[in-house]
């Protein structure tokens, strides 16, 4: 930008403009030196705190109608501070369109909950309708989010098909359908026969065993269809790797449980020692109180450990697996999110959010985003400058985005 733009220099890149779209030229540029695109997050907790407070107030006093504007502002802040190879991401969603989506989805959610409190049959019908629509909502939510996200002026796309969404998500409903079928087959649902409990256990166990596979199915659908100009990603992580991560998480959970037992045991020991040392009378009473308080604190801490330990483990390992194995022939992501750093941050966040009655939350959100995003980097053999989009992707349906919020879909980073 600093060099004087002589006509000759300016003409050179212009002339080479269309070259990378030619297959042979693409192959040639693949062989070129790798480009490394680090991710840097420049957001600040105190600034997001200010944005968050003002957004929250406006959302509250408008009875929620301001929410889409608040969401766009939040996403623009987080996207705009995510620099990929020194170029920021950006979010373009139109709050007015999103508001229409929220009102539509809100009305549907209200109908759904009202149906549930009216009668069980109405609730069941509403559940089946939502389940049948869910995959379509997932697809349009992904489409909206990516089509409204840009980098270097190019919009992302989500190329997944509707059929793919159903194929990826319908297996998730199999356990529910089995239960409904079993209930229908029963002569009197109020007095379930003996076999039902065995059946119930078998289905639950099967679901737990199949969970990693189902999640893999869903992630495969998502990560196979992210696209930017010529780039389209593919998930090359195997089902086996997913099972590995979940098994290890189970191990960590068990370890956390053992840790809790150990702490409780130590607490009981301390209690015994205090009682023995205290002798009798007053001092014995205070000793017992101190020991009881210690045991209580230890139990609370232990419970927190069990609650908190496995989650960051799963998050870090799954992010590394998912993004480390996402890419294509000329593009790959790397993710090196450390478990211990994420655990430390999570503990700190929980503690401070609890101590500040929630006011620390924006700081926690920024710190978590920084840790998770900066753990990722991108390597590509295609010069990013050579990315070229034939046509601008469609904006996508805003209702899908609202539904995605409601049902908790996310891109996962």
């Amino acid at each position, binding site marked *: *930008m600093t060099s004087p*733009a002589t006509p000759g220099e*300016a003409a050179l*890149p*212009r002339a080479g*403009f269309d070259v990378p779209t030619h297959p042979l030229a693409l192959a040639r540029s693949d062989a070129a030196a790798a480009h490394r695109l680090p991710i840097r997050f*420049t*957001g*600040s907790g105190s*600034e997001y*705190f*200010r*944005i968050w*407070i*003002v957004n*929250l*107030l*406006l*959302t*509250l*006093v408008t009875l*929620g109608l301001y*929410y889409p504007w608040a969401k766009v*502002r939040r996403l*623009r*802040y987080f996207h*705009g*501070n995510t*620099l990929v190879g020194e*170029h*920021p991401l*950006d979010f*373009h969603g139109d709050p007015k369109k999103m508001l229409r989506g929220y009102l539509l989805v809100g009305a549907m959610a209200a109908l759904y*909950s009202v149906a549930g*409190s*009216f*009668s069980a049959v109405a609730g069941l019908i509403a559940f089946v309708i939502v389940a049948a629509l869910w995959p379509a909502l997932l697809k349009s939510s992904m489409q909206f989010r990516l089509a409204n996200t*840009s*980098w*270097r*002026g*190019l*919009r992302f796309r989500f190329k997944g098909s509707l059929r793919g969404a159903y194929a990826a998500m319908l297996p998730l409903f199999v356990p529910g359908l089995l239960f409904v079928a079993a209930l229908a087959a029963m002569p009197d649902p*109020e007095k379930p026969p003996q076999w039902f409990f065995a059946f119930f256990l078998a289905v639950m166990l099967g679901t737990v065993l199949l969970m990693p596979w189902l999640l893999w199915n869903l992630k495969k659908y998502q990560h196979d269809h992210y696209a930017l*100009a010529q780039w389209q990603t593919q998930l090359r992580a195997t089902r086996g790797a997913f099972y590995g991560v979940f098994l290890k998480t189970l191990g960590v959970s068990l370890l956390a449980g053992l840790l809790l037992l150990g702490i409780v045991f130590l607490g009981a020991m301390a209690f015994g020692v205090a009682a023995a040392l205290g002798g009798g009378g007053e001092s014995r009473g205070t000793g017992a109180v101190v020991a009881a308080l210690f045991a209580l604190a230890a139990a609370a801490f232990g419970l927190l450990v069990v609650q908190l330990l496995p989650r960051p483990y799963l998050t870090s390992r799954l992010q590394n697996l998912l993004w480390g194995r996402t890419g294509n022939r000329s593009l790959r992501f790397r993710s090196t999110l450390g478990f211990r750093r994420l655990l430390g941050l999570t503990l700190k966040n929980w503690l401070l*959010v609890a101590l500040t009655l*929630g006011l620390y*939350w924006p700081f*926690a*959100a920024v710190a978590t985003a920084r840790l998770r995003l900066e753990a990722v980097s991108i390597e590509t053999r295609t010069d*990013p*400058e*050579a*990315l*070229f*989009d*034939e046509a*601008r992707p469609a904006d996508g349906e805003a209702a899908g985005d609202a539904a995605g919020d409601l049902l908790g879909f996310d891109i996962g980073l």
Partner: protein
Amino acid sequence: MPRATCSGSTLASDAAAGPPPATLAADYFDGRSARATPVTLRLAGGLLQVDGEGVSRREPVGAVQWPERTRHGLRVAHLADGASLHCADALAWDRWMRAGGHRESAVVRAQQSWRGVIAALVLLVLALAALYEWGVPAASRAVVALVPRSVDAVIGREALASIDQHLMKPSRLPAAQQERLRAAFGRAVATLPAGEAPAYQLLFRSSGIGPNAFALPDGSIILTDELVALVDGDEQVITGVLAHELGHVRHRHGMRMLVQVTALGAVASLVVGDFSTLLAGVPALLGQAGYSRDAERESDREAVRVLKAAGISPRVMVTFFERIGQWRDDEAGGDGPSKRDGPSGSALGIAISSHPADAERIRFFEDAARP
């Protein structure tokens, strides 16, 4: 046309330090290619001028999606056709925008000043308090007023069927005693001014949950044999208890609770739901308990009204609370009376309890009994 005029000379008075930057260097992306084109930006005559190698655009200022001022991050502006302008020097961009006569929205100004943020925080706390104190109760009253009574009837019927199946057995009270209690309560209700007593039906049951009386949304009031036995069948005490339940029916507390739970859950998830849905449940639960206690107080007032109209001293309710307290102590085992002001008496217990402390309610009925 105006586009070529007055570039660089406008709004010179705006900047305090030095002449305002009339032009700004930025990167232009056309929305098709990831390659940036260096351009010069100019704001003049309501138009944004973008000039660079092979780029010459004039866009109405109102058609551009401008970035908001933030302390961190770059500046990206979007043109209507998908092209965008990027500027890494945020300070220069902001100065250039100001010089161009751009006015920031009040929201951005509030976000970027700590004074605005503290004002927002104070307003937020006030808004939450007002919402809890008046907003949610008023909204629930309005929503419930819109819900037809037939919905109450459906919900009440379902609830009664489920309660009968799992918790209750048919009453073993003699029919004559049932009739006497029914008549006593009917006489008390009949003393109310016309139109103030809701439709109700009194049902007798034998319970698995000890002495109790409760109202369902459809106007069913269920009285357990155990409660009748607890007060030795005293008609006046039972009339007081039933009048309290009638208050729940009259104010449609059951339906209002449903709406309030939903509203509180929505507000709580708005404020802390991003962080943890588990955490969002805590304020919702506490708020719900608070509303429940308010509903109990409202029904206690209703009980006093009915009792006074019927010429019965509200002191009969004190008898009831003493008996039920004794029963609770007996249930708790040999711990003695200390248990009574245990969990339900302490402030922490009150915060999560659905009923006010017995002591407070006894005081209320004693005060009401004074002439």
